[in-house]
C-alpha cells in the first residue's frame, strides 16, 4: 500500500528531478562537436571543464557565498527579534502580526525587487535625503552596488527566516524562561542559556532556507547590481542563454550544488551538536 501511494509521485520526481541531474552531470563533461552548430556537444569525459569553469569564475563563486552569508546573517538579525516579539510580546495581536509579517511577500518577488531598485535609485526619495543630510556624498549611488544586492536578498528571503524562527519560538514554554529568572538569571543570561538553545531548530532551518536560495540567486544581482556584482547564478544564466555553452553551465551548476550540499552537511552536523549553542 505505501509503495502504491509513493509510485506516481516518485516516478515523477525520478523523471523530472533525478534524471535531469544525471543528465546535467553528463553534459558537464561534454565538448562541442568540431564543425557542429552552437549548442551541439558530444560526450568526451572532458573533466577539465570543471577546472576551467571554476578558475574562470572564482570571483563570482566567492561573491555568491559571501553575499548569501551576509544576507543570511542580516536576515537572522532582523527576523529573530521580530519573531520573538510576535511569539512573546504581541498578546492578542499575535495572529494579525503573523499575517502582516508574511503579507509583503504576496506582492510578486520581481515587483518587490523592482520597487527597491526605484526606491534606492536616483529618482527615489532615499538618495536625495541622505545626500541632503550629508550622510553620503553627492556622487554616491545606492543601486548597482553590492550593498543593494545584499539588501535585496535579505529582504526577499526574509519570510524563509522568520517563519521557522517563529515556529520554534512559539513552541517554547514561557515557564522555562520564568524558571530561569527565578534562579536569578538576568534577561541576557536567560536568553543565552534558555531561549536561544531552545530556538536552535528554527535558527538552523531558517538559515538554511535563506542561504540556499540566496547562493543560487541571480535576480537580485541582475536588477539591483552591476556587472561588478555578478554572482554565479548570473554566469550560469548567461552561459545558457547568451553564450549557449551548455557544458560549462552544467559544470558550474554541478559545482554550485556540490558546494552547497557540502556546506549544508557540515553546518547541520555542527548545529546538531551543542558546540554552536
Amino acid at each position, binding site marked *: *500500500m505505501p509503495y502504491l501511494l509513493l509510485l506516481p509521485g516518485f516516478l515523477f*520526481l525520478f523523471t523530472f528531478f533525478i534524471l535531469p541531474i544525471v543528465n546535467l552531470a553528463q553534459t558537464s563533461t561534454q565538448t562541442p562537436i568540431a564543425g557542429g552548430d552552437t549548442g551541439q556537444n558530444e560526450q568526451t569525459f572532458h573533466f577539465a571543464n570543471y577546472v576551467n569553469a571554476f578558475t574562470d569564475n572564482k570571483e563570482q563563486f566567492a561573491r555568491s557565498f559571501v553575499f548569501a552569508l551576509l544576507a543570511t546573517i542580516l536576515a537572522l538579525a532582523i527576523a529573530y527579534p521580530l519573531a520573538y516579539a510576535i511569539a512573546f510580546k504581541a498578546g492578542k495581536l499575535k495572529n494579525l502580526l503573523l499575517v502582516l509579517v508574511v503579507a509583503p511577500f504576496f506582492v510578486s518577488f520581481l515587483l518587490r525587487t523592482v520597487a527597491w531598485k526605484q526606491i534606492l535609485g536616483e529618482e527615489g526619495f532615499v538618495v536625495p535625503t541622505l545626500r541632503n543630510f550629508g550622510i553620503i556624498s553627492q556622487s554616491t549611488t545606492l543601486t548597482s552596488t553590492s550593498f543593494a544586492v545584499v539588501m535585496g536578498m535579505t529582504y526577499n528571503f526574509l519570510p524563509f527566516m522568520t517563519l521557522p524562527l517563529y515556529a520554534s519560538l512559539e513552541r517554547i514554554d514561557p515557564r522555562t524562561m520564568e524558571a530561569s529568572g527565578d534562579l536569578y538569571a538576568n534577561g541576557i543570561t536567560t536568553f543565552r542559556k534558555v531561549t536561544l538553545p531552545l530556538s536552535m531548530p528554527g535558527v538552523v532551518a531558517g538559515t538554511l532556507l535563506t542561504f540556499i536560495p540566496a547562493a543560487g540567486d541571480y535576480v537580485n544581482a541582475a536588477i539591483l547590481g552591476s556587472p561588478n556584482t555578478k554572482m554565479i547564478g548570473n554566469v550560469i544564466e548567461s552561459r545558457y542563454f547568451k553564450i549557449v555553452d551548455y557544458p560549462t553551465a552544467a559544470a558550474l551548476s554541478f559545482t554550485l550544488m556540490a558546494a552547497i550540499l557540502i556546506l549544508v552537511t557540515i553546518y547541520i552536523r555542527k548545529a546538531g551538536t551543542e558546540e554552536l549553542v
Partner: protein
Amino acid sequence: MSNQKDASIPTIPAKARLSRWFGRNLIRIYAVFGFTYLFIPVLYTFAFSFNDSGKSNLVWKGFTLNNWKNPCGAPEVCSALGNSIKIGLLATTFATILGTMIAFAIGRYAFKGRSTSNLLIFLPMATPEIVLGASLLSLFLVFHINPGFWPTVIAHVMFCISFVVVTVKARIASLDPRLEQAAMDLYANELETFRRVTLPLVAPGIAGAALLAFSLSFDDFIITNFNSGTLTTFPKFVYVSAARGIPAQANVIGSAMFMLALILVIAGQFVGRKVKVAK
C-alpha cells in the same frame, strides 16, 4: 496603597525611567522598525499603481484611477497574468495530488526505504533553483522538447511536490490516532474511516499546501525562465520590462494580488477560529 506608590515614583529620576521604559519596550520598538522595513516596497508598489505615468513608471507624475480601471491597458500584461494563473492552477492540482499521496505513505506507514523517500523529498528543496531549472532544460533539450507551456507546468509540479509533502505530513503527524480508532470501533471500515474521519481532518493541511504551491508557482521566476521559452509569465514580464520601467498596470496587478491573498489568509484564520470555538 496608592499613596505609597505615588511617593515612590518621584524618587526615580526621569532619565532612569526613560531608559527603563526603553529597556522594557526595546523589542517592540525594534518590531515597529522591522514592520516599516517590510512594508516600504509594498506601499511603494501600491502608491505607484495610482501614478499617472504613461509608459515608464519611474517618477511620480500625479494621481489617477485609470490604471485600476483598465488593468490590461499595457500590452502583454494580462496575457502574462493569464499564463501565470493557468500554469499555477495546473501545477497546484498535480503537485497537491502527488504530494498528498506521498505524505500519506510516509506519514502513515513504516516501510523499507522510508528514509530514502524522505531524502528524495528533501533534495529538491536543498537544490538551488537555478540548478533545478538548468538541469530540467538540459533534459528537455536532449529529448528535443521545446521549452514552453507544458515544460513549465512540469517544472513547477516538480519543485512544488516537496513543499506539499512537508505541509501535509505535518498535519498528518498532528492527528490524534484515537479519532480513527473510535471510527473503527463504531464499525466503520478502512475506507469509510478514511473518507469520513481522516480526510476531513487532514483537509486544512491539504488546502494550506495547495495555497503554498500556487503562490510558489505563481511567483517563480528562475525555473520558469529556463523552461518557458518564449512564453511570458507575470514575473517574466516584470523582469523583462524592469530595464525601461514597468508599466503602472503591473503595480495594479501586484497590489490586487496582495489584497486578495491578505483577504484569503484573514478569512482562513477567521474560519479556523470558528471551527475551534465550535469544537
